[in-house]
């Protein structure tokens, strides 16, 4: 149905060519109304139809009542970032009603809950009033508020041609086979669809979903779950954690998966899980785990890392392996707990007081979240140090397409642990901190082994682990620690390059920016600019990153923070003659990166330094 305001068919072109699999849906709801189920059903339905789709949950730090938006981007081009505009707006939240309407560009389809009894005066848009609450109440008075959300799934199914079988399968997944819930919600979908068919018929705008070939091996998953699975396949023996958004679901997924993956037939576990009293205790527990010879991990976010700093230094100095996953939220302080950022990078890389340096693994997709989940333990035990996994809210808490996880291609690397007297005897002049092999990594024994004991400490000690305040002993030890981490530059996860022949402009980026880079590249290319890309996947920097800078006349360091943290690291670590070639494009407003915005900022910097004319010429 067309609204009473009467929109001329040719006015905004909604009768023009149909747009297939290339639009964004914005769903405005209130937190805690069960809308997340409806949104995930929509997302899963489209994914099951083989369509490339991504979902972004912009939620408040609140249990119920505050506004939430869910953005679904459908893109045959494979774009995963939130688009630059909304094509279909669903309105369920009275609190943001006016602003949501205001934000609609002409031509937007507006589906709204007419039971809200609020006006939608937009004669330049196509509007679809649906009495969702009333319909839901007819189905189940008590759950009306939640069911109303499912009604819009049915309405939109009619408008954009969602497949019934796919919806049903998504409902099944969402409600995990619970017959009652599936039945009730299916009825709500059918009601919504029937209402839309009856009242709007063919006047349903120009956006359509069409089937694409379904990749049977791929599925949708959140980064936090991928990390959780990775850590379980990495042989984690202890997870110690303290709840904090956006990292809690790493731990919750570990807890959910352990019974299926790491329990024996008697239900006994090979991995302890401790919800600690705070983040200080969480990191203490995983250091205790590493001391004993186990594989300990904690997951947290910036405020937690701040609290852990003292212990992190102990791990570096005493050389105790463990793993911390930082799922970055917008800081500083409490900041924006439910928004994303890459603002913790420098605080991880040189965490704690004194001179330190830590390996930081930076996944950019679901496959890497899993891989780095298990690999982090191997790296930690090999280097006998704390290793950071660096994710963010966007990667961690949103659902992304995953092509399937690859099984670890190598056995667990337990590092230089002496387990028998024979092994100990084979080492000439063993000392816990003596660099026998010349790679900066010393051998260690474990408590309970009865082999050459050590009293670990955070104070100065000599190569035998005996307390020492001697100047040369301290300096030599600190130099070895630096060498130990430095040596990992060539074998930590290496950068991934996509190089253009021209090699004029290069972009270095990392982490969740991976999901926006293709669209940024296409935008830049549309202006005639061919840029190479280098995605950094770990710190300390690989020599490949240095070569990339050397090979390009200008390199932009693109990141989701204010100060250009990776840029700062590059400036510090690159040879001095390369420093003038690198330029920072850093921006963070808490939202996942939008391609156009970052592309424009790149153009701006290139213009400022006079590189554009050259490139475009």
């Amino acid at each position, binding site marked *: 149905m067309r609204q009473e305001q009467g929109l001329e068919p040719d006015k905004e072109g909604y009768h023009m060519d149909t747009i297939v699999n290339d639009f964004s849906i914005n769903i405005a709801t209130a937190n805690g109304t069960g809308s997340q189920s409806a949104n995930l059903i929509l997302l899963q339905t489209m994914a099951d139809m083989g369509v490339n789709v991504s979902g972004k949950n912009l939620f408040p730090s609140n249990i119920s009542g505050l506004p939430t938006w869910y953005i679904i981007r459908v893109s045959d081009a494979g774009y995963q970032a939130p688009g630059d505009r909304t094509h279909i707006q669903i309105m369920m939240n009275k609190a943001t009603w006016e602003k949501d309407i205001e934000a609609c560009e002409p031509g937007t389809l507006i589906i709204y809950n007419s039971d809200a009894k609020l006006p939608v005066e937009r004669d330049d848009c196509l509007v679809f009033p649906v009495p969702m609450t009333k319909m839901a109440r007819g189905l189940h008075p008590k759950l009306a508020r939640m069911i109303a959300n499912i009604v819009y799934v049915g309405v939109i199914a009619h408008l954009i041609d969602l497949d019934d079988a796919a919806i049903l399968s998504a409902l099944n997944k969402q409600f995990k086979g619970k017959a009652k819930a599936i039945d009730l919600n299916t009825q709500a979908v059918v009601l919504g669809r029937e209402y839309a068919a009856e009242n709007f018929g063919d006047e349903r705008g120009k956006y359509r979903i069409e089937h694409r070939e379904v990749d049977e091996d791929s599925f949708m998953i959140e980064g936090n779950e991928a990390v959780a699975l990775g850590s379980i396949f990495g042989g984690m023996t202890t997870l110690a954690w303290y709840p904090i958004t956006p990292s809690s679901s790493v731990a919750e997924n570990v807890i959910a998966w352990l019974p299926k*993956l790491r329990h024996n037939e008697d239900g006994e576990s090979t991995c*302890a899980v401790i919800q600690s009293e705070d983040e200080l205790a969480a990191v203490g527990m995983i250091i*205790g785990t590493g001391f004993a010879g186990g594989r300990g991990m904690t997951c947290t976010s910036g405020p937690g890392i701040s609290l852990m700093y003292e212990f992190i230094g102990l791990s570096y100095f005493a050389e105790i392996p463990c793993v911390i996953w930082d799922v970055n939220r917008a800081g500083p302080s409490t900041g924006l707990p439910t928004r994303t950022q890459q603002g913790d990078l420098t605080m991880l890389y040189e965490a704690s007081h004194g001179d330190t340096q830590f390996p930081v693994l930076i996944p950019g997709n679901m496959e890497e979240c899993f891989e780095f989940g298990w690999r982090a333990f191997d790296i930690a035990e090999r280097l006998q140090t704390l290793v950071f996994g660096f994710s963010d809210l966007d990667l961690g808490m949103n659902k992304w397409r995953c092509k399937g996880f690859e099984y670890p291609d190598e056995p667990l690397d337990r590092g230089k642990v002496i387990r028998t007297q024979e092994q100990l005897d084979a080492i000439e002049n063993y000392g816990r901190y003596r660099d026998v092999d010349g790679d900066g990594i010393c051998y260690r024994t474990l408590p309970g082994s009865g082999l050459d004991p050590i009293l670990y400490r955070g104070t100065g000690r000599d190569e035998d682990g005996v307390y020492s305040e001697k100047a040369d002993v301290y300096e030599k030890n600190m130099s070895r620690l630096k060498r130990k981490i430095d040596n990992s530059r060539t074998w930590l996860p290496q950068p991934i390059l996509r190089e253009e022949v021209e090699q004029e402009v290069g972009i270095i980026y990392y982490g969740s920016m991976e999901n926006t880079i293709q669209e940024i590249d296409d935008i830049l290319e549309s202006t005639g600019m061919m840029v190479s890309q280098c995605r950094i996947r770990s710190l300390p920097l690989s020599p490949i990153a240095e070569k990339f800078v050397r090979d390009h006349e200008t390199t932009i360091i693109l990141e989701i923070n204010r100060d250009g943290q990776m840029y700062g690291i590059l400036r510090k670590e690159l040879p001095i003659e390369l420093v003038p070639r690198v330029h920072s494009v850093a921006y963070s407003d808490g939202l996942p990166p939008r391609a156009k915005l970052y592309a424009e900022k790149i153009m701006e910097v290139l213009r400022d330094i006079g590189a554009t004319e050259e490139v475009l010429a």
Partner: protein
Amino acid sequence: MTIKLNVINLPKDDYQGGKSSLCAGCGHDQISSVVVNAAWENGLDPRNIAKMSGIGCSSKTPAYFLGQSHGFNTVHGRMPSVTTGAAMNNKDLTFIAVSGDGDSASIGIGQLIHAIRRNLDMVYILANNGVYGLTKGQYSATADIGSKKKKGAVNETQPIDLCALAVNLGCTFVARSFSGAKKQLTALMKAALSHKGFAFIDVISPCVSFNNNEESMRSYGYVKDNDVELHTVDYIPHFSPVEEIEVPAGAYRDIELHDGSIVRLETISEEHDPSDAVAALAALHGAEAAKKHVTGLLYFNADKPTAAEDQNLVSTPLVDLSDEQLRPPKETLDKINSGFLD
């Protein structure tokens, strides 16, 4: 000369540590020697012990006992969490931890509380002298009201009684002793080592440099004169036949510990029932009001699962598991990938 061996045929020398760098006469050194004696006499294998500590004078002591044991001198107040992680991964280890009143009553009180709450299987020795030693003599949070250290004003701030706190938290073994009461402390230490669960021993351990003056309520002289013993404590090890032990003339109470050893509490004046938490608190508060120090086994409860038991872990310590036990097989991942293992 024959060297005396313990029940596992080890000489006492195997339990000694390095030379102490604490002040001459420090109560903490007496605690260290009690740890050596108790571990040796109990026949514990030093290689299966892990020594844990935080930061402070007391936390240095693991260097001075059990030189054949691994150990970890961690960060200020946070030793309980490190011990928790280690205990989960190797439940075959015996954890002997030393902490001070700065460590336990201030910066680390949260971790102490939660280790008790979880009933972590460890012996937690609090070397309690009422002052910070390494930073040269500031009051700690256990300093008694009306007590005066060598320099500075009288303490007027309410102390935290960590034994009372432990009882309130349901700690399964709560004792107080005095570093100068070697016999009592050794018996309690041995009993603590035989206990499965969190064994808390608050040892009043005078600081000879900053808090051993006449006006101090934690000086050797004051504690000796004002030590109210709840009972005489004897320890009967599980490997020693009970019939060989002399039966005391007066009333006594035997408590069986987890390894089969017995702690025998011989009544001195009024009988104290260590299973009665209220009686333990009454004894503590009564002593505080009378400006006395009550010592002995204040509270004991054998029936609480330990932190590791709560986890329902496999019987093999986690650190000894094979790669196959730690990493699920490829088929399992294949199932996850194809959505068959939800």
